């Protein structure tokens, strides 16, 4: 039987505010336990929440970026359940009236065609603390868990998609698209390793052509693009095998174990959850007037889709190049700075994706940490374009800049004497010398069939380039050599 996979994602994005969603405590990562948990975060008796302006602005900007409806009124609700990392015994979230309504995100499939993934809504909520399962003891031999509430109250934007994805690749592409939108907007650092972006994946399968969805499993807390793909691939295979063996998929929460590359059922608790949502009486309805939303729309930066389109239409880049260069804000900014410095988009695109990306990958560096700045790279490309150096020398210059040997391409070219020799007199002198030094090769050349001579000229070119320490213009060398050798025949 042919099976179709159906995937929906709930992406939790930590918003890059300075302070928490409902308190003035810092959201900085990595502080000593509970040193950034203030009275409000701890849920001390008598404390009250006040909503962070920036969290609201960021959520709305995300909504605008995915062309979503922004309802005039949104309301915070309490989601009630007990857990040690949830200090108040409820999470303040938005159940019935989220801040961002339906929208859509465009992803690019492997074959290059675009697909729209609908976003059901996005809502604001507070993050929980962390449980640390180290070896604490209560002194009576019972193992204890330590609770750190520094993260409690960090603003989260939960982005809930429709079940519109049909493969692990699509899911990963969607997640990347969300990642690039939030980082473009600067509303999150998108750091998945630190948990700034986390993802719950709903997966089901159904026979191809069937209209109803199959029973879904929810895979919780998948924290990398790669794991999302692998978790889905494993889960799809598991569900298909299960059904084909006559079994049934049960609706449950599963955990992806990257070490074993499998998903497994989280031990189901005895009761079904009943979160008893109701409007938080400590917070009032959030009303966004049109002028405010318009203002946020006006200050929206150029988004990945728009950038990609502009790279293609205005800069004449291929769809592929535009896609790669627009995928992250840092990459796009770097590329544009290089283009600015050298004045040629295609050259800039080639260098950024070629030499630079290769070097970054080898060293495992992000583009914002590149030892070669965009201005340096732009300067280098400029010297290739105006024939000051040839391609080979350019690679040497790049390497030198990478190693910090020189502040600019010009400085390196000067210091290493890499300036291309284009003076034909000087080149002719070198050619004459090489011909004089290579009587045997000249003899072979002369004796060869004319159609084989083309290949044989390579030897002489190499010798001349060597003699010029790589600085001779290769095209010029080639042309002059051919003239001189043929004259000997």
């Amino acid at each position, binding site marked *: 039987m042919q099976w179709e996979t159906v995937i929906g994602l709930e992406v939790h994005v930590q918003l890059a*505010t*300075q302070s928490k969603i409902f308190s003035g405590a810092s959201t900085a990562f990595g502080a000593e336990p509970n040193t950034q948990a203030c009275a409000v975060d701890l849920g001390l008796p008598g404390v009250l929440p006040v*909503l962070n302006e*920036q*969290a609201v602005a960021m959520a709305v900007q995300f909504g605008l970026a995915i062309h979503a409806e922004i309802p005039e009124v949104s309301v915070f609700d309490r989601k009630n359940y007990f857990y040690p990392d949830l200090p108040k015994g409820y999470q303040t979230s938005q159940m019935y009236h989220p801040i961002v309504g339906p929208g859509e995100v465009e992803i690019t499939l492997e074959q290059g065609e675009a697909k729209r993934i609908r976003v059901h809504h996005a809502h604001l909520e507070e993050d929980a603390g962390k449980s640390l*399962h180290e070896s604490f003891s209560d002194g009576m031999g019972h193992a204890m868990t330590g609770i750190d509430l520094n993260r409690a109250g960090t603003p989260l934007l939960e982005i809930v998609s429709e079940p519109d994805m049909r493969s692990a690749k699509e899911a990963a592409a969607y997640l990347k698209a969300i990642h690039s939108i939030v980082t473009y907007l600067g509303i999150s650092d998108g750091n998945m390793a630190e948990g700034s972006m986390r993802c719950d994946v709903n997966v089901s399968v159904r026979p191809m052509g069937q209209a109803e969805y199959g029973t879904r499993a929810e895979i919780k807390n998948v924290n990398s693009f790669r794991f999302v793909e692998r978790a889905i691939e494993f889960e799809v295979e598991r569900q298909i095998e299960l059904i084909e063996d006559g079994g049934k998929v049960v609706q449950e929460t599963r955990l992806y174990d990257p070490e074993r590359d499998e998903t497994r059922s989280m*031990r189901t608790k005895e009761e079904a959850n009943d979160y008893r949502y109701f409007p938080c009486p400590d917070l009032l*309805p959030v009303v966004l007037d049109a002028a405010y939303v318009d203002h946020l729309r006006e200050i929206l930066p150029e988004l990945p889709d728009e950038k990609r389109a502009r790279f293609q239409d205005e800069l004449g880049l291929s769809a592929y190049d535009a896609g790669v260069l627009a995928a992250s804000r840092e990459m796009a900014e770097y590329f544009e700075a290089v283009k600015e410095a050298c004045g040629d988009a295609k050259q800039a695109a080639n260098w950024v994706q070629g030499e630079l990306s290769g070097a970054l990958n080898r060293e495992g560096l992000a583009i914002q940490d590149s030892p070669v700045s965009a201005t340096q790279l732009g300067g280098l490309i400029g010297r290739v374009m105006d024939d000051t150096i040839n391609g080979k020398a350019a690679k040497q210059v790049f390497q030198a800049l990478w190693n910090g040997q020189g502040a600019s391409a010009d400085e390196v070219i000067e210091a290493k004497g890499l300036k291309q020799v284009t003076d034909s007199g000087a080149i002719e002198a070198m050619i004459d010398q090489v011909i004089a030094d290579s009587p045997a090769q000249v003899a072979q050349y002369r004796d060869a069939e004319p159609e084989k001579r083309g290949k044989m000229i390579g030897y002489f070119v190499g010798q001349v380039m060597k003699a010029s320490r790589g600085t001779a213009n290769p095209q010029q060398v080639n042309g002059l050599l051919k003239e001189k050798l043929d004259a000997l025949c």
Partner: protein
Amino acid sequence: MALEHADVLRAAHLARLGLSDEDAAHYMDDLGRILDMVDHLQALDTEGVAPLAHPLDATQRLRADEVTETDRRDHFQRCAPAVEQGLYLVPRVVE
């Protein structure tokens, strides 16, 4: 709406209140009568009436995104029943 014994146990569990069977029976009786009193609401036609969550028709004020709190961990943990290395301790949570 009649209240069942199971409803009381379910509510007690959701609210994490330890109740003995006797307690549950006792509360079942009280809760049943309170709900009977509450059920008078059903007699009122509220079709088309918008729920009122807050007595004033006010809207949420927003706070500037500024860090205003400093570390007061030691102060706050003075009233904590079990703390080690700055962490609140609870019986082992198994995930």
